[in-house]
């Protein structure tokens, strides 16, 4: 198994934030990760043009969780976005200074996925906050996130609201190239003395043995705890529930998990997940 170029070392991390509250967790996690890896942090605030357009429509109304409804206006939305951007920048500056991390911040206006994709070309890891929607977490991830997952070549760290990066690392191994990349990244992120968990996901016991040997050979000097489960969302989620809180490394290819099921897993896991292409 050869390490993939670009995964040798993570030098630059992108954290994409928008106007929603789940971005804060992502920003904090990105700073901590950058500090740990001595990487540079690039903050990107995207002023979603969809929101701006919506606010300009004459009938646009915003509904809160307490049925408080108010009229949306362009100037208000504009101002709110600018304010949010400032807040995020200040938060990033404060956190980065605390952790002694090099950082930069940009504001872009446009479609979220497109803007993030553009900046992602310059970095080694993309960090996003996701909010599986308090009310609708079954199948729905935000469109932007789905688009990025589909198109990005970089590993993506997805953090649900209120979840932080935690040890140990839990790597899902299916034997695919993406799974191999995930294993490499896990090895890169772990300290030798720190145990990690590898979950062999396969519906075939023989294949599972083979995959385990393969992974064990690669992780020869690493302390590993081995787990096994079926390659289904339900089985993977059930296995994760039994494991201590930790950060999951998930192969992004369809062979491992179809897109829809992958999105469901991301929406329901309630963990930090690094999706590896």
């Amino acid at each position, binding site marked *: 198994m050869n390490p993939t170029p670009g995964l040798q070392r993570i030098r630059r991390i992108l954290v994409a934030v928008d*106007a*929603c509250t789940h971005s804060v967790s992502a920003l904090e*996690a990105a700073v*901590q*990760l950058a500090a*740990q890896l001595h990487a540079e942090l690039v903050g990107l605030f995207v002023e979603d*043009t*969809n*929101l701006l*357009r*919506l606010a*300009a*429509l*004459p*009938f*646009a*109304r*915003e*509904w*809160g*969780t*307490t*049925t*408080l*409804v108010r009229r*949306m206006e362009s100037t208000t939305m504009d101002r*709110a*976005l600018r304010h*949010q951007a400032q807040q995020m920048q200040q938060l990033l500056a404060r956190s980065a200074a605390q952790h002694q991390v090099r950082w930069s911040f940009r504001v872009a206006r446009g*479609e979220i996925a497109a803007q993030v994709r553009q900046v992602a070309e310059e970095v080694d890891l993309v960090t996003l906050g996701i*909010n599986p*929607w308090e*009310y*609708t*977490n*079954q*199948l*729905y991830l*935000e*469109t932007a996130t789905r688009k990025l997952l589909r198109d990005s070549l970089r590993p993506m760290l997805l953090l649900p609201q*209120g*979840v*932080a*990066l*935690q*040890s140990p690392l839990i790597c899902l191994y299916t034997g695919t190239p993406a799974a191999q990349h995930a294993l490499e990244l896990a090895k890169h992120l772990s*300290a030798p003395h*720190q145990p990690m968990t590898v979950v062999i996901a396969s519906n075939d016991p023989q294949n599972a043995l083979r995959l385990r040997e393969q992974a064990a050979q690669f992780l020869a000097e690493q302390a590993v705890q081995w787990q096994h489960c079926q390659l289904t969302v339900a089985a993977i989620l059930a296995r994760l*529930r*039994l494991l201590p*809180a930790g*950060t999951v490394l998930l192969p992004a290819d369809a062979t491992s998990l179809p897109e829809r099921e992958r999105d469901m897993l991301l929406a329901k896991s*309630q963990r930090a997940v690094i999706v590896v292409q």
Partner: protein
Amino acid sequence: MTDIQPLAPARLALRIDPAQFHFTTTAELDDLTDVLGQARATEAIRFGIGIRRAGYNLFVLGSPGTGRHTVVRRFLEQQAATEAVAPDWVYVHSFVQPHRPHILQLPAGWGRRLRDDMQQLIEDLLATIPAVFESEQYRARRHELEEELKARREHAFEELRAEAENHGITLLRTPSGMAFAPTRNGEVISPEEYEKLPEADKKRTEEVIAVLEEKLERIIQQIQPWRREGLQRIHALDREVMQSAVGQLLEELHKTYHELPAVLSYLETVQQAILDNADMFRNEEEGEGVNFLGMTLRKGKDGEALQQFSVNLLIDNGDTHGAPVIAEDNPTFPALIGRIEHLAQMGTLVTDFTLIKAGALHHANGGYLVLDAMKVLMQPFAWEGLKRALRAGALHIESLGQALSLVSTVSLEPEPMPLDLKVILVGEPLLYYLLSHYDPDFAELFKVAADFSEEMPCDANGLQLYARLLATMVKREQLLPLDRTAVARTLELSARLAEDAEKLSLHMRDITDLLREADYWAHDAKHTIITREDIQRAYDAKVYRADHLRERVYAEIERGTILIDTQNTKVGQVNGLSVIGLGQFAFGYPTRITASVQLGGGEVIDIQREVELGGPIHSKGVMILEGFVGGRYAAEQPLAMSARLTFEQTYGEVEGDSASSAELYALLSALATMPIKQSLAVTGSVNQHGEIQAIGGVNEKIEGFFDICRQRGLTGEQGVLIPAANVKHLLLREDVIQACAAKQFHVYAIETIDAGIALLTGVPAGERDASGEYPQGSINQLVAARLAAMAQTAREFAQVGKDKELI
């Protein structure tokens, strides 16, 4: 002349013959197990301990040193050993009224068992409950519930979203919530594009969005009720899981305590409290933020909250045999009633039921409590607190501040403990009688008095028993044994302590001290047994240690600073005798008493009283002799004399009437102008009939005058007049007895003033003949004649005065 003879030496002291003891040393004697000389008291104690009625507590009265505490404890311990062990008492938290802890009674030894069982229960729960909530089964069931509840929400939103998408509308997240927006090619339509739309399309779009928003509003309105329902169902699941876990653990306790309904009832409340407060036992929720590659911090269990399930073992009789016998040496209010302690936390004082501490009444419950009465009365509010507990038959623990309503801070009000005990107060007789007279509660609460005697008869049986008592004391104190002579001398000194040759003292403390000190001197002399000489040495050494003042007083008499005559005669002057008591030592010494007479109105002036240096009893004695004089000599004529009596060279208060006969002798001497022998000293009280009455300290007084005469040189004429009623109290020193035997000193027993004045003057007092006249030259005749002359002179002066007025 008088024919009163001095007392024979044999009557001057108690002589106990050692030969009547049929042992060589006390080591041969059996211990005396009975209490000697206290039949009345021991009978009362038996009765008081045995009777089981309210109010039958005991007051043991007697002088210190008579063995009250020792005897009482012995009786109590004997009785208590035959009685059942008192129960254990515990305080537990009241989950219904937290500020009113419950008290539970359990059989002895079960209190600590319950405490340990509850502690174990909590530990088991702390291990079991988190495991139950972390089990796959629970997580799966909870997940199912949560998913079911989420699914309801999601379904509603998904339906709405799908419906919106069918109309080309998307549900967007906004900074503060969500909104519907028309889309084209996956993007929200721009305002410009929207404006270009036909009016009908725009209207339709807005109508659709309005309908969708109505549906969204209905869904949002449902969220809170769904959330509540979800929480209730999760709570019910938690409770069911807890019930199973807790129930199993408590089932074992129910079996253990199935015969104790109060404990079972308590366990029911515990179970309910655990179910209501499951979070106390659970781990913290997972998913809290920690540093990547850092440590995970977990919040500890709330120790204070768990404490409410502990048990305060207030009274533990698990190791006690028989009923408790408690003696509280420092009976303050909290020491008796108990107290509630507080801890200082963050600037405030906090408390809970675990800080309830037992008092002596708690410890003695089911048994006996021995208290020193004086100590109880001297402690603020201790007596009132004790009475309150005994009256109520229950013990409320509260601070003095609470009891006096001085403190209104909310504190604990522990459930009272029912009381079943006997209180034994030990005190001096004066305290008993004062309480009986002034405290109406006392007679209700302390119905049994055990009166300790100070002395016992000095008869043949008493001597033998006393010898055994000495043998018992010697063994208990691990002293050298006494030989017969030492026993005899100890008995003689015991009589001296009792101040009566027909009694033996029951002040065991003094006797014990004598034996201990004799043991010391015996060792000092390298003796292997204690002899008479060792006893005497111990006695003399103790006197010597205390008689510094006596030495100084005698020295001043010897030096002539204090004027005392011990020979020749004087008119109107007599040697009285006084006693000074300092600590445990008393000594006597002579005091000059003088009388002067003049024409007057019939008063006898007591100079001590006039200058307020005479106590009431002393003044009474002077008035009595005044009554004697008036009754004998002035029944038919006015008393035209004014007399003054005084104790010369006394500058402090004089009290007591033991010198009233001496004062009368001085007065009669002055009236009759008949001198009194200064070689004699006088002590004795006189009544209005001229009878001499008994006084106290007769031995010290005689020895005091003897010492003064001896230091000047005995003449063979010297001696002391004492009341005949005091002969039985004579226990004089050996040197005095020897001087009397050698006729160098004399002790006379006097019954009447007439006998005394005859001895003091050498002139008969005289008795009235048939015509009512006294014999010529007798003291009475001389006094009567003098008073008659004074009366005549007074009448003449009065007539002259009248004549002058007329003129």
